[in-house]
């Protein structure tokens, strides 16, 4: 396998009863890339992300993270490998503060055991203080959420919750970030902010990103590579420019040429 490949999916197939959600999809994410997955509703984009983050187990095919096969790895172990994700509908721990949510992203990596944890002593204390400083200095600054870090998440507006979710994923210091519709339901200004954050994370931290998004403007602007799914099959794969000119993609989104005209 190529040295630069971070995530590789080979012939992934996933079916729910009679519904073929993914049909022999192969894809490859290279180091440092922003890789967009687009497609009409129900095309299987989120299913693909769920396979990579191990919420679903594909019936066929293999998944690799760098050189390690992850097709059968336990769900919670994925985080430790360096794969973080956000969700389509914000899935934060609503009763906790922003800072607690973000800290949770890092906790799985800390080494202190349950007992020193209960006593808040020695290793736990040192780790906790270091973690706090790291989060404050890097992540909270980067995402411009200083003002809300002590607020309870459930009380925040949607756009900010999305940002907190990204912060929580970043706290895991991931090599790969899976973003499921980070701009969904945002206004223009919030979308631009989010695009800026994603680019910063990609450039400054060197995180490779898989992005599922419906906002075509954003996708074409920030991604290096675009993959198009329709009814669970991959119909195109290439640079944003190639995709924009691809006949099959245009048909998937807008319908058949002739039919479109005949309807007019």
């Amino acid at each position, binding site marked *: 396998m190529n040295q630069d490949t971070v995530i590789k999916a080979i012939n992934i197939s996933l079916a729910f009863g009679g519904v073929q959600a993914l049909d022999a999809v192969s894809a490859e994410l290279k180091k440092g890339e922003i890789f967009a997955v687009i497609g009409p509703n129900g095309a299987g984009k989120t299913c693909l992300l769920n396979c990579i983050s191990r*919420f679903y187990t594909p019936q066929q095919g293999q998944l690799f993270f760098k050189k390690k096969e992850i097709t059968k790895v*336990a769900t*919670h*172990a994925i*985080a*430790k490998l360096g794969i973080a994700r956000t969700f389509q509908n914000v*899935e*934060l721990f609503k009763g906790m503060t922003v800072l607690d949510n973000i800290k949770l992203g890092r906790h799985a990596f800390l080494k202190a055991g349950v007992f020193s944890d209960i006593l808040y002593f020695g290793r736990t204390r040192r780790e906790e203080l270091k973690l706090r400083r790291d989060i404050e200095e890097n992540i909270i600054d980067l995402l411009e959420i200083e003002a809300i870090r002590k607020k309870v998440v459930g009380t925040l507006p949607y756009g900010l919750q999305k940002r907190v979710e990204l912060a*929580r994923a970043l706290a895991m210091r991931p090599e790969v970030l899976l973003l499921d519709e980070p701009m969904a339901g945002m206004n223009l200004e919030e979308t631009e902010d989010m695009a800026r954050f994603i680019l910063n994370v990609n450039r400054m931290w060197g995180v490779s990103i898989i992005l599922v998004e419906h906002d075509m403007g954003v996708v074409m602007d920030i991604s290096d590579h675009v993959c198009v799914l329709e009814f669970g099959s991959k119909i195109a794969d290439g640079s944003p420019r190639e995709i924009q000119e691809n006949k099959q993609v245009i048909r998937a989104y807008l319908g058949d040429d002739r039919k479109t005209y005949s309807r007019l």
Partner: protein
Amino acid sequence: MENEFLYFMQFLLSGLSIGSIYALVALGFVLIYKSTSILNLAQGEFLMVGAYVCLSLTLDYGLDFFTSFIITMVFSVLLGLLVERMILRPLIGEPIISVIMVTLGLTYVLRGVVIMIWGNDIRQFNVFPEQPINLWGVKLTYLYLWSMGVSLLLLTFFAIFFKYARTGIYMRAVADHQTAAQSMGISVKRIFAISWCIAAVVSSIGGILVGNIAGVGVDLSYIGLKVLPAVILGGLDSVLGAIIGGLVVGVLEFLSAGYLDPYLPAINEVFPFVVMVLVLMIKPYGLFGTEEIERV
């Protein structure tokens, strides 16, 4: 007048000591409900089994009370793990109602096993001195004071544990959102196991305390039923609610026994349930429970 007040204080303090034991058991209920959304109907049986093990070690094997207490705690951890691993883990993903029915089945199994091993008699611990001490005219036995002390200590410990300890935060995270917790690298199965262990431990501590007060018999498991209104009163998913609910039920029981019993015999057994129904009519999610609000 002076006498009236002393009476009241007597009922109140006795109620608070029993109530703090209820609160402890209620904590077990809430813990399991919060992290796994299962209502564990076998909580009372956990309590009974714990009391029996401790009693048997003290009386039949002649260990001193403290040693048998520690061994019982270890036993409860194992019991919690066993139940979680053997019975509940295979049921992950099944409808909640069937899982709750399974815990109901578990109550009969545990009760049966206890009768098989230890028989049906009620036995006494007799480890604490009987004579009461006098607190400004209110008479309380050492047992009641110990119960109150131990329970309050444990409840404070767990309150801090959930709020600040990392494992406690994981438990809240899992309760809040399982898939998100998994993607943070938290093992949901491990958290489930920890919840069951803690629930088993706190209920058997409750069992040992109540067993000391009332004697150890199979009927001890009905404490589980008494704690249920406490939990529902406080809100099924609130630790603070469980504590307050437990105390309220204990106090109501003693006050109703003291003041209403001459007119309505045995009212103390049902009075907590009556209050529970009244509270639920006004606040359907309990006093401190979270209301499920879906934003559309």
